[in-house]
C-alpha cells in the first residue's frame, strides 16, 4: 500500500460523487411506483447502489467535506424516493422471500436511517424457516448475511460454511475464472468484510489467495478496458487485511474518467444522451466512488 494512491483515489471518488449527485434526477422512481416494481433493476436497484456508496463515504469520513455533503444529499434523495422506507416495508411485507428490501435497507441503516415498521417486519421474517431457507447462490447468501448483521437480525448464519460454499471459498484455479464469476468473487469479499470495514472477516487463506491473484485479474481486465470490473477488483484490494493498491491502476482509472466525473463502464463509446449516459454508467460511478473512498481511508490508516 502506498500513500501515492491517496490523492488520486480522492479525486476519482469526489468527481464520481459529484456526477452521481448532479444527475440523480435520472435515477428517480417513476410517479406512482408501487412496491411490486415492474422492473426492479431500472431505477430501484441503482437507488440502492447510490445509497451504498453514500453510506460508505459517511462511514469512512475520510473523503473530505465535499463528498460527505454529496453523500448525505444522495442518501436523503434515495430515502425520499423510497418514501422514507415505506416502499421497502411494503415490498418486504408483500414478498417475504425477496431479499432486496432487506439488502437496500441495510445501506440506509449503515448511514443512520431507520424505519420501525421495517425493523419489526424483518425480525418477524428472520424467525421464519421459509425465509432462512430461501434458495440463492452462495455469494448472494453472504449479501443477506451481511445485511442481516447490519440490521441487527439473528439469522443464525454459519459464516465459515457460507464462505466455503462460494467460488472464492474453494480457492480455485485462478486461470479458470470468467467475467461473471469475477463479479461474484468481488461480492463475496464485499460482504465478508462489509466493504472494507472488517478486513478480518476474510479467512487468512482467502486473503493470501487474493493477494497473489488480484494483480493478474486487474491486469487482464484493465487491458480490455472493463473499467467497471476493474474498479470492483480495486475495491477488493482495499478490503484486504494488508491492502493491495497499485498506483498504476489508479492512474489508469483517473485517466478514463471524464472531466464531469462520468466513469465509463468499458471502452465502448459513451452516448451523448443524458438519460442513456446515466443508465449506462451509473453503476460504474458508484463503484468508482466506493473504490476511491475506501482506498483513501485505508491508505491513510
Amino acid at each position, binding site marked *: 500500500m502506498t500513500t501515492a494512491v491517496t490523492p488520486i483515489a480522492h479525486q476519482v471518488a469526489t468527481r464520481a460523487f459529484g456526477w452521481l449527485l448532479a444527475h440523480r434526477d435520472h435515477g428517480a422512481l417513476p410517479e406512482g411506483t408501487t412496491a411490486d416494481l415492474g422492473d426492479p433493476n431500472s431505477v430501484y436497484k441503482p437507488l440502492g447502489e447510490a445509497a451504498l456508496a453514500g453510506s460508505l463515504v459517511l462511514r469512512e469520513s475520510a473523503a473530505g467535506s465535499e463528498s460527505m455533503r454529496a453523500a448525505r444529499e444522495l442518501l436523503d434523495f434515495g430515502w425520499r424516493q423510497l418514501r422514507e422506507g415505506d416502499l421497502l416495508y411494503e415490498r418486504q411485507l408483500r414478498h417475504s422471500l425477496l431479499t432486496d428490501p432487506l439488502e437496500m435497507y441495510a445501506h440506509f441503516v449503515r448511514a443512520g436511517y431507520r424505519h420501525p415498521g421495517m425493523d419489526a417486519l424483518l425480525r418477524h421474517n428472520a424467525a421464519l424457516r421459509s425465509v432462512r431457507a430461501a434458495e440463492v447462490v452462495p455469494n448472494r447468501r453472504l449479501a443477506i448475511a451481511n445485511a442481516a448483521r447490519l440490521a441487527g437480525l439473528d439469522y443464525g448464519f454459519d459464516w465459515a460454511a457460507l464462505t466455503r460454499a462460494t467460488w472464492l471459498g474453494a480457492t480455485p*484455479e485462478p*486461470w479458470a475464472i470468467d467475467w461473471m464469476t469475477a463479479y461474484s468473487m468481488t461480492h463475496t469479499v464485499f460482504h465478508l468484510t462489509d466493504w472494507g470495514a472488517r478486513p478480518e472477516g476474510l479467512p487468512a487463506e482467502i486473503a493470501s489467495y487474493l493477494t497473489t*491473484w488480484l494483480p*493478474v485479474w486487474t*491486469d*487482464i481486465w484493465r487491458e480490455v478496458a472493463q473499467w467497471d470490473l476493474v474498479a470492483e477488483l480495486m475495491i477488493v484490494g482495499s478490503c484486504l487485511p494488508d491492502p493491495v493498491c497499485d498506483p498504476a491502476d489508479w492512474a489508469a482509472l483517473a485517466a478514463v474518467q471524464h472531466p464531469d466525473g462520468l466513469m465509463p463502464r468499458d471502452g465502448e463509446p459513451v452516448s451523448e444522451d443524458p438519460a442513456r449516459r446515466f443508465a449506462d454508467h451509473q453503476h460504474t460511478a458508484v463503484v468508482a466512488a466506493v473504490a476511491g473512498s475506501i482506498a483513501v481511508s485505508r491508505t491513510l490508516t
Partner: protein
Amino acid sequence: MTTGSAERAARAVYTEATAELARCVLDALRGAGDTAPLARFTEAATDPKAALAAVRVLGADVLAPYALTGGTPHPRDLTVIAQATAVFPAPVLTAPPPEGPLENWAIAWRDWATGRLIAGLGDGAADDTPQPPAAPVLTDTADWPRWSAVCARLATLALPGVTGPVPAVVRRHPVPLARGTTRALLRRDYPTAARLARWLAAAHRDGVPLPLDPAALTEHIALHAAGEPRLALDLAVARLLLGRTA
C-alpha cells in the same frame, strides 16, 4: 514475385522446418524416432539451410530428449548443432538489456544452455560458451508481467542439466511466475503459457512450493492448443518434468 512475397515465402519455409523439427524432437521425447534425429532431419530436408535454421530456433530443446529421458546425443547430431551455429551465428552481444537488445541477450543465454547440455551429456569437449551477463530484467520481479515475458523467452533453459543464474532466479520467484502463467492463459496466449508452464514444472520438480497446480494447468493448455508442434514440445517437456508421460 515481389520482395515482400519472397520474404513471406522464405519465412513460411523456415516456420514449417521449425514445426517439422519440433515434431521430430517430440517423437524422440516419446521414445520413437532415429538414433541421430537431427542428422536424419537435416539430410532429409529439401531446404538444408532452413533445416539448420530450425535447429538454431529450437536451440537447447533439440537435446531435450537426452536431458529428460537419458542417453547421449549422437556425434552426428552434435555436428549438426555446430553447423547450425556456424551458419547462423549468434548476434554479437554488446550489452545486456536495457542497453542492448533483449533478444540478443536471450539468444546468448539459450546458446549458453546448449553448450552446458552438450558438455553435461558426455561430449567430453570442454564447454567454451561464455556465460552471458546478468541483467535487471531477470532480477526485477516487481513488474511481473514483463519479468514473466522474459522467462518465457528463456524457457529452453527449463531443462534438467541446465543450471546457473537463470533457473536459480526463476526458482526463487514462484509467485510472479505463476501470475505470468495465469495472465498468459487468461489472455489466451497459449505459446507463452506453455513456455511458462515449463518453468512451473521445473520449479515443482525442484520441490519449490507453487501457488497453483502445474499439472492441471499444463493439461488445460494442452486441451486448448496442443496442435502446434512447438507448443506441444513445451508441454511435453513440462509433463516429463512433472513426472508424467510426454
